[in-house]
């Protein structure tokens, strides 16, 4: 049903140039920004990874998930459980384990949810995410409503040789940047692979795909699992950066924010997801910092903004670009 309109899969030249320029700015940023801003941009890049992972479902396959935050949060919790109270653990095995944990959860939940369509898919993904949320919220042994602390950032030494230091804000920044670019590259590769083409086919006409002999269930489950795993990567970084995890990371607001990021930036090409994540976070902090106590009511401004965007620019910023340039997909 949703996201049936042709998505901007091939990025127009002008846009590509702008994005490369933006990337150069991102690479140069730590030389100019203070620690505070470095952390802020790192957080935006983490959310960009999260938004890209959802884009595989929402923009490419046409599945609107309202429960994607569950897989984001799970990997964060995985890191919290794996980190002992008084020491750091190695990044090199905890990161894959955390991503695997999220993928596994997505595989199991996906088994139930991808057999549903349209409205059902939206409601069921949300309900299952809420189930995971309550599992952690209700159980004191899993941190309960307060969540868990991650006292030490993962260590990066290989055979005792220190490579880089995640306690260093600049190192963490570049590590996240590399991760974000890697995820982008992997997803772009996937988008143009036979699997990616099949997923896009499912978005455009699932019945036809099935008539052509594609097992759409298998493809959708694959997409759901990969998206869950990549969301886990973002969640792991989020947990490592902030030093704590709580159930709100898996909450329904988090999932809805990711959807909003995609709509803002444009869906189906992953670059839009990055742009959307940055735009959304910048807007959110702008609303929260409004002067004269107006920032206290940020929910009102954010809500109004979202409603206005949906009414007047439902295809987001890149959609406006598309309209102006008349670009073809």
């Amino acid at each position, binding site marked *: 049903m*949703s996201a049936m309109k042709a998505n901007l899969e091939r990025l127009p030249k002008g846009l590509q140039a702008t994005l490369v320029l933006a990337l150069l700015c991102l690479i140069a940023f730590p030389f100019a920004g203070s620690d505070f801003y470095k952390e802020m941009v790192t957080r935006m890049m983490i959310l960009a990874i999260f938004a890209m992972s959802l884009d595989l479902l929402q923009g490419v396959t046409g599945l609107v998930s*309202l429960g994607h935050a569950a897989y984001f949060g799970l990997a964060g919790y995985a890191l919290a459980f794996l980190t002992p109270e008084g020491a750091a653990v190695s990044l090199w095995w905890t990161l894959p384990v955390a991503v695997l944990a999220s993928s596994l959860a997505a595989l199991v939940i996906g088994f*139930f949810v991808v057999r549903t369509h349209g409205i059902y898919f939206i409601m069921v993904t949300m309900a299952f995410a809420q189930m995971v949320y309550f599992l952690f919220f209700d159980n004191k042994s899993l941190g309960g409503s307060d969540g868990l602390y991650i006292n030490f950032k993962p260590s990066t030494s290989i055979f005792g040789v220190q490579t880089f230091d995640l306690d260093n804000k600049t190192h963490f920044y570049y590590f996240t940047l590399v991760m974000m670019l890697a995820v982008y590259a992997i997803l772009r590769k996937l988008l143009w692979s036979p699997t990616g083409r099949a997923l896009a086919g499912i978005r455009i006409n699932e019945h036809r795909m099935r008539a052509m002999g594609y097992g759409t269930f298998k493809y959708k489950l694959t997409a759901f699992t990969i998206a869950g795993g990549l969301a886990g990567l973002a969640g792991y970084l989020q947990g490592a950066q902030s030093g704590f995890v709580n159930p709100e990371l898996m909450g329904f607001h988090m999932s809805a924010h990711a*959807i909003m990021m995609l709509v803002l930036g444009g869906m189906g090409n992953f670059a839009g997801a990055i742009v959307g994540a940055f735009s959304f976070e910048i807007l959110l902090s702008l609303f929260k910092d409004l002067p004269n106590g107006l920032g206290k009511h940020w929910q009102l401004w954010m*809500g*109004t*903004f*979202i409603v206005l965007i949906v*009414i007047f620019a439902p295809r987001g910023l890149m959609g406006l670009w598309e309209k102006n340039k008349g670009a073809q997909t």
Partner: protein
Amino acid sequence: MDLATFLIQLLNSVQYGLLLFMLAAGLTLIFGIMGVVNLAHGSFYMLGAYLAYALSGLWGSLTLAILVGALLSVVFGLALEWLLFRHFYERDHLDQVLLTFGLIYIFEELRSMLWGDDVHGVAIPELLSQSVPLTDTLSYPVYRLAMSGVCVALALGLYWVITKTKLGMKIRAGAFNSAMTEALGINIKLIHAVVFALGVALASVAGMIASPISSVYPGMGSSVLIMCFVVVVIGGIGSVRGALIAALLVGFVDTFGKVLLPSISGMLVYILMAAVLLWKPEGLFKQ
């Protein structure tokens, strides 16, 4: 568990189930007839509870507050439908999700600006503040029984409107084939507005009658919204009968889960939903 405790829990589960039904009925009708995903449905529940708190504080009578509040909710529902929702019936589900998510933020903030972020209590009416003794030590509050009574009356009323009246006939026709209904000269836009306002009023009244028991607090809409989603998924979209049965089922599983299996009680309802999905992916009573 002895018989008296069992009876109390059973009454609680029926009462919770009926309350969920009031919310889910509106939600499933709006889904079924207009095809709209309404995340803001929980906000109407919250709005009702706060209206009950504000109006009963003003006039000292919960009954009067509920009557006036229900009327206000209908007006509010009509206005919201006319201003926003009407333009989204034909849009992508994605747009509907975002619109109604934006509305949640707006309603939450307006609630915070009007009534603050504290938890408030609503007094139970004098007449219903007694308890029915069950054994020497256990008793059951009359208000909870009255609540279930109101829910049953409203459910019967809804059933009567939908199956026996001319309006109900038009609503069913609209749900079955909206374009054909319109071609036959029925004002489908009006039907949509009525159904939407009805859904808002049902949710709001549910919030009002629940307010003395659950108290009134920020974010009370979200948790109830997700339960309603589960009810609608289990019952089948658009089916009011399905919503009733699913709501009672969810009420039963949730209430007894909390008593018998407290450590996983929060998850039980979702496990129930997963089981139903495996068995019938489109709910028990697909329309």
